[in-house]
């Protein structure tokens, strides 16, 4: 257990983070009145967010070990444990999750008119399982919470979704389920190939499995994570799910659920199957590039705002996987940062789409053309988030994309160069959307009577805008917590020495 630093004091903060939303969810059933239920959900998520903040301040960024650890035996017969802990890779993802949830509640305030209690129940339930995914250090527990996210999401899409919600929800569910079942097989195979048998994730790392075994395990993991991310040929569930999901569902889906895939790469593929990772790297890099370009071109052709952003996600996540698999510190840290950024920016964009949809009841670009004239505050927010999404310098995505591409150039100039058109495309489709919404054409649909954002909506968007610029201009507080863990991760993958300043390694020969 030397990989785990147990939590100090008597409060198991990670468990508390998971239990708070869960308990809040079940308590919803004794709370009468939709309004109270909304306030209750808001309160629970806010308290969870507040409780999660000390994680950052008490995080020890000098060690790669898992912190705030908890360890209890769960199924002794199989040595399955309830092990929690976070390191530099998961810390920010946990914080992002807790931060986004109150915003998801806020954005559903008016959007959700039926079955409010059940909706909030799903939201809180999914928060618990998402946090569990990022905190779990035991494979069985991880798999359980990983799959558990599907059920609330299935309902979020299926019950409160758009016209083709049934198709979208079932496709989402089956697609992601199909991806992850093989992962379970791989997990069990790992268990038996390790001596002593264990499901403890950190203990499975660096075991030096045989090369062929690594490849099989990698493929099983890859399928699960690539579908979740989604990487290029496995992305077809995403636009359907995004378009049909309610705003909060889209936000959660884009901001957190997709990150679970890339998190999986970082946490499992790289350290557990390093040899296979290195073998498959070229293919994955090219898949990432394909995803970047495909996402960009497809987004350019969309007229539905949500679809546009959904496809842009495919492109952005392509950058993340590119950053992960260049396997150098700057690329990895960039990928990790991009995961956070994508959560913030794309989440915010989905919130924006939801806000306009509540007013005009359409997400069509042409029908929403020219609302900028009537909603100046709204388009200001939209503009900043769009710029962030196209990696405008000074915003969060730029710094991450910069790092990823720097890592890419350090790895292979060809691949990085091929990814560059993705950056251009991002600018193209985002500016196209922005142009349509803010300006429209010479003849715009009439939008008189549209009200600009109210305080609740501004409060929903403002924290995200703050983060856009904070990360964009001063990313150090976010990057500092990653260094030790990323360095350790790379050490596990290709034997790079830990503690080397991340930048020193990027020099080309």
């Amino acid at each position, binding site marked *: 257990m030397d990989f785990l630093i147990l939590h100090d004091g008597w409060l198991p903060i990670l468990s508390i983070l998971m239990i708070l939303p869960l308990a809040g969810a079940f308590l919803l059933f004794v709370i009468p009145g939709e309004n109270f239920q909304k306030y209750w959900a808001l309160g629970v998520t806010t308290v969870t967010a507040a409780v999660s903040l000390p994680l950052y301040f008490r995080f020890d960024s000098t060690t790669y070990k898992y912190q705030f650890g908890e360890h209890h035996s*769960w*199924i*002794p*017969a*199989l040595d399955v444990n309830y092990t929690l802990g976070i390191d530099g890779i998961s810390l920010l993802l946990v914080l992002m999750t807790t931060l986004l949830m109150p915003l998801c509640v806020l954005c559903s305030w008016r959007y959700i008119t039926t079955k409010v209690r059940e909706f909030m129940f799903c939201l809180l339930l999914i928060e618990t*399982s998402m946090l569990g995914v990022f905190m779990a250090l035991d494979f*069985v527990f991880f*798999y*359980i*919470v*990983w*799959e*558990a996210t*599907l*059920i609330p999401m*299935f*309902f979020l899409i*299926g*019950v409160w979704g758009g016209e083709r*919600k*049934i198709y979208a*929800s*079932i496709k989402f*569910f*089956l697609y992601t*389920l*199909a991806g992850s*079942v*093989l992962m*379970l*097989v791989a997990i*069990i*195979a790992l*268990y*038996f190939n390790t001596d002593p048998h264990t499901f403890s994730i950190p203990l499975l790392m660096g075991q030096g499995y045989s090369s062929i075994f690594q490849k099989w395990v990698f493929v099983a993991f890859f399928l699960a994570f690539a579908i979740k991310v989604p990487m290029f040929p496995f992305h077809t569930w995403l636009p359907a799910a995004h378009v049909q999901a309610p705003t909060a569902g889209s936000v959660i889906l884009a901001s957190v659920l997709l990150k679970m895939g890339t998190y999986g790469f970082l946490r499992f593929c790289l350290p557990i199957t390093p040899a296979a990772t290195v073998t498959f790297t070229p293919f994955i890099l090219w898949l990432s590039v394909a995803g970047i370009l495909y996402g960009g071109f497809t987004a350019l052709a969309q007229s539905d705002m949500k679809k546009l952003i959904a496809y842009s996600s495919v492109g952005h996540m392509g950058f993340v996987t590119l950053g992960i698999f260049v396997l150098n510190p700057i690329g990895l840290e960039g990928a990790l940062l991009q995961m956070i950024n994508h959560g913030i920016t794309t989440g915010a964009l989905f919130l924006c789409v939801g806000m306009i949809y509540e007013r005009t009841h359409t997400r069509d670009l042409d029908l929403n053309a020219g609302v900028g004239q009537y909603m100046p505050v709204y388009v200001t927010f939209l503009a900043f988030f769009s710029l962030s999404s196209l990696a405008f310098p000074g915003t969060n995505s730029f710094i991450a994309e910069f790092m990823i591409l720097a890592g890419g150039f350090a790895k292979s100039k060809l691949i990085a160069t091929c990814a560059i058109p993705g950056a251009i495309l991002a600018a193209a489709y985002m500016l196209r959307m922005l142009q349509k919404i803010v300006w429209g054409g010479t003849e715009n649909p009439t939008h008189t009577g549209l009200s600009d954002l109210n305080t609740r909506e501004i409060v929903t968007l403002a924290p995200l805008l703050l983060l856009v610029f904070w990360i964009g201009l001063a990313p150090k507080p976010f990057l500092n917590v990653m260094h030790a863990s990323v360095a350790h991760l790379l050490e596990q993958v290709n034997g790079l020495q830990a503690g080397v300043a991340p930048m020193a390694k990027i020099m080309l020969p």
Partner: protein
Amino acid sequence: MNTFSPFTLSSLSSMGPELVLLSVGILLIVVDLFCKNRLLLPWLTAAGTLVALVLLFNTSSATVFGNMYIVDGYSVFFKMVCLVGVLFTVLLSERYLEIEKLHHGEYYSLLIFCTVGMMAMVSGGDLIVVYLGLELMALSAYCLVGLLKQDSRSNEASLKYFLMGAFSTGLLLYGISLIYGLTGTTDLSVLSERVVSLDLMNNHALLVGLGLVLVAFCFKLAAAPFHMWAPDVYEGAPSSITAFLAVAPKAAAFAVLGRVLIMGFGDVHIHWGPLIAFIAVLTMAIGNIAAIAQKSLKRMLAYSSVAHAGYALLGILAGNNEGLSATMNYLFIYAFMNMGAFAILIMLCDNKRRGEQLDDYRGLAKTNPLAAALMLVFLFSLAGIPPTAGFIGKFYLLVAAIHAGYIVTVVAAMVFSVVSAYYYLRVVRYMYFENAEQETAVSMSPGMTAALVLAMIGMVGMAIFPGPILSFAGKSLIGY
């Protein structure tokens, strides 16, 4: 092992639960004759079952009647599963019989006799005893299936079940006789020694005998390709009996299969292992794929039950204690989730509709949110989606099968479990995503409430604390 233990009264004490049930069964017939209060029967049955359950855990391990009847941890576990199944069935029956206007006192006594038969099967240390128990169970079951005399489906089911059952019994007997002819014994513990000492490991006649026995049990398990009777019988039988059939006799058949294959023929695992693997995959494939096409929930659950037999076979397949305990654990969990699902099905059954068609579930979440939510949990559990107990059960099976090296079989199992998610989700879709055409009036009864609460407690408990049942199953095997 060959020492003959004479019949003594103390031998009877090892059969306490069986004797209790037997007397309750007879008592039921008597009470039915003289007492007009219909409610007395189910509660008497339930009480008898509970007493048997309590006695079960207070019976010490023993081998009685000259190795013919074994009371060990293994049999106790399976008896527990059977008794839980019966208990559920009784609780569900109370209201169901009223709706179906099925006022037969013999319903409960048949149920009890069927249970006694299963318990005999489970404890059978000799193929003959196994056969006896099996027949007692089967004959009772044939009657139970046909109890809805007015319903032609029920009649058809009963007849079909009987014919198929008789056929499989024939095969079983033939198989047993072959084995006996080669080894000179029907005693399972002696059998394994003889197989080795007589060097019969690769004897074709023995394998044919074993194959015939296997086929007979596959009939009972409703494992493909011997499952054809199952959907029709399950659909035609009274719903409570369907629930019962899908759980208890199946568990008993698994118990025997485990005992015969692992205890009696453990050394020829290389021969029956691939066969079981093939049957398991085929069962899962046919069960799951056929279930997709069903419009009737009851029939869908019938196919799903076929598929679940395939999953449970994964543990047998492993051919070791680990696998066997995984199967036991799974059957126990399956009892709860399947009973839960049938409880909802019966709950929605009223005079106007049978609650069997998928359309009956349209918009259930709106008309009866609690029932929908419970059904949801049972369905997700049946689909084996975390964090439900069904996943835990499946997980152990996979662990065992992978440990034994059947990776391909496991991968197939996983693929079909995704397929199964589709049809379970379809029910969820009907319940939650579609709107109701009509109001559903649900009348609860104490028995139904008790059944649902019990099933729910079991589900949640086994999901959060999955350890105890598995370790119980594991411990049951130690003295084996």
